[in-house]
């Protein structure tokens, strides 16, 4: 009998299509907004997670995210190096400054000064050039978004430079660094070059990157560093989570959740309403089926399968559109970090299925209450 149910659904093409479109659009809207939210939050931690070779981050105690910089005294690096369980520690400098391209384009840039000796924090993937070329003084590698801002529409060409604080910084490559939350161009350079760009601050080090010795638990090493006083150590993932929590508490996620909620409610309402209408308009055929001996259980299975087909097809179409849009948008250098986690895809489809399930249940109750004798009238 489930086959009969599917044929009935297929026969009412207008409602079948309307339900699939409603589910598809709702799934697309929810997945798209959830993906943007997830991407934005992950971008707040992108520069932290991009550092693959260290597993500890040490900052001033009050620092909550990568974009909050409070310099550390140089002595702190030595203190951290002296903590049992620390294999090595290296400084990382973060400077925001104004850059100007040869073509006259002006942008605020974020410069990351990497320890000259160890190159800890160097981009681990490059699109063009070699990352370790920054060992040479007054050179840097730029991220794709930054390159697009300073040299829009142009391919990378060696020898170009950006003027920062009256120094000409030569661009030696394009990194594949994750897009920063701030949207500013990201330049990786050596600590010595960054120091030359400083405005005479007493302390340059923004973060200390460290590695736990083999066999030491990073969380335990963090506690030891914290115990030194005046410092706060976190694992890479812990610092990333803190950064996401910090930005997540600013209210932006609420705006996205409202849109996601609207998508859920509207999608479920249209789908549920159309499905209920489909069932009500088919009251007479369904009554006939009851007269000829179709049980409520069989009719329930029919409705369940009809609903599952609509939700399945709609979810597939919606997810495919969301994934395609995501892929399309990612071709833009500034939006290259946009991603659609499978958890979001599954969660949104599940949420819609749960809410639409209520409409299916209402439809089933309607069918169960149908008086089969009405078919004689």
């Amino acid at each position: 009998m489930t086959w009969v149910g599917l044929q009935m659904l297929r026969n009412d093409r207008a409602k079948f299509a309307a339900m699939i479109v409603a589910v598809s659009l709702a799934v697309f809207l929810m997945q798209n907004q959830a993906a943007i939210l997830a991407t934005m939050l992950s971008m707040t931690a992108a520069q932290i997670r991009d550092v693959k070779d260290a597993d500890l981050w040490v900052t001033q105690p009050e620092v909550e995210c990568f974009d909050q910089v409070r310099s550390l005294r140089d002595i702190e690096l030595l203190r951290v190096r002296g903590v049992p369980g620390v294999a090595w520690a290296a400084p990382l400098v973060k400077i925001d400054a104004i850059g100007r391209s040869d073509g006259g384009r002006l942008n605020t840039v974020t410069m990351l000064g990497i320890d000259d000796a160890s190159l800890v924090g160097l981009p681990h993937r490059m699109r063009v050039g070699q990352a370790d070329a920054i060992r040479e003084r007054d050179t840097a590698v730029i991220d794709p978004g930054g390159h697009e801002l300073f040299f829009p529409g142009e391919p990378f060409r060696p020898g170009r430079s950006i003027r920062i604080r009256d120094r000409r910084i030569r661009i030696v490559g394009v990194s594949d660094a994750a897009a920063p939350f701030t949207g500013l161009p990201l330049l990786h350079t050596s600590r010595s070059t960054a120091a030359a760009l400083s405005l005479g601050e007493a302390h340059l080090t923004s973060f200390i990157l460290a590695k736990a010795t083999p066999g030491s638990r990073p969380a335990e090493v963090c506690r030891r560093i914290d115990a030194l006083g005046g410092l706060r150590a976190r694992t890479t993932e812990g610092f990333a989570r803190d950064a996401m929590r910090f930005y997540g508490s600013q209210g932006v996620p609420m705006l996205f959740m409202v849109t996601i909620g609207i998508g859920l409610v509207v999608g479920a309402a249209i789908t549920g309403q159309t499905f209920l209408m489909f069932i009500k308009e088919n009251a007479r055929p369904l009554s006939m089926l009851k007269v000829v001996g179709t049980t409520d259980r069989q009719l329930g299975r029919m409705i369940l399968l009809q609903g599952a087909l609509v939700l399945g097809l709609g979810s597939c179409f919606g997810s495919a559109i969301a994934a395609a849009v995501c892929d399309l948008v990612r071709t833009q250098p500034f939006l290259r970090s946009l991603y659609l986690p499978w958890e979001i895809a599954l969660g949104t489809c599940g949420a819609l299925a749960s809410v639409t399930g209520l409409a299916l249940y209402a439809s089933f109750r309607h069918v169960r209450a149908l008086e089969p004798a009405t078919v004689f009238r």
Partner: protein
Amino acid sequence: MVSDDPTAVRCTDIRRHFGEGEARVEVLCGVDHSVRRGELSFLVGPSGCGKTTLISVIAGLLEPTSGAVSLFGRNLGTMPPDERVLFRREHLGFVFQQYNLLQALTAAENAAVPLLAAGMRRLEAVDRARALLDRLGLGSRTGAYPRQLSGGQQQRVALARALVHEPRLVICDEPTAALDHATGEAVMELLATAAVHPDRAVLVVTHDSRVYHFADVIAHMDDGRIVRTEAGPSSPVPTSPFPSTAPA
């Protein structure tokens, strides 16, 4: 299991009302009626006299307020609802005034619906339905959808649906009401030849007097009672075994 009782349908003092208080309407007022196996029995009467309510009660689709209905010796009133549905699925076939074919299914698929409801595999059910449609003269139209069929053809598909599972009782509600005279005559001819069987009873509700000559027995109904039962023109049976409950 059904018994060997020669009476297919036995209604005893069936009463049924709708509504309560001032809105209460007595639709069936103590109906005694029976239909024998092998009999083509007509239930006739003016609109609103309770014919449809009576066949709904006989089919187990409506509970009587009081009284008993037994089909082939089985008392419907003592059956649990689920069992009644299964009994109806196995032993009853229905022909409706408006055909009630599923627009999404072909003629053969429509005719196969009772078999599908009984759990038969689709291909096997449709094959059986196709064979029956062939016997009913619709062999060339088994793949047609209802919208592609004339009224008479649709009623023949409905007849096939009523007979495909070889039920013991076929209940027809105004089977010719939506058809012109010639088509109605043809459908009744088909009903009389295809549905009537020594082991099967056919109960037809109609007020189309032009088809009365097909009846073995005609029960006249008025104001919720069987007022007269008479042998039809084609009857080998002289009278109904039940006396009329008509007031003197």
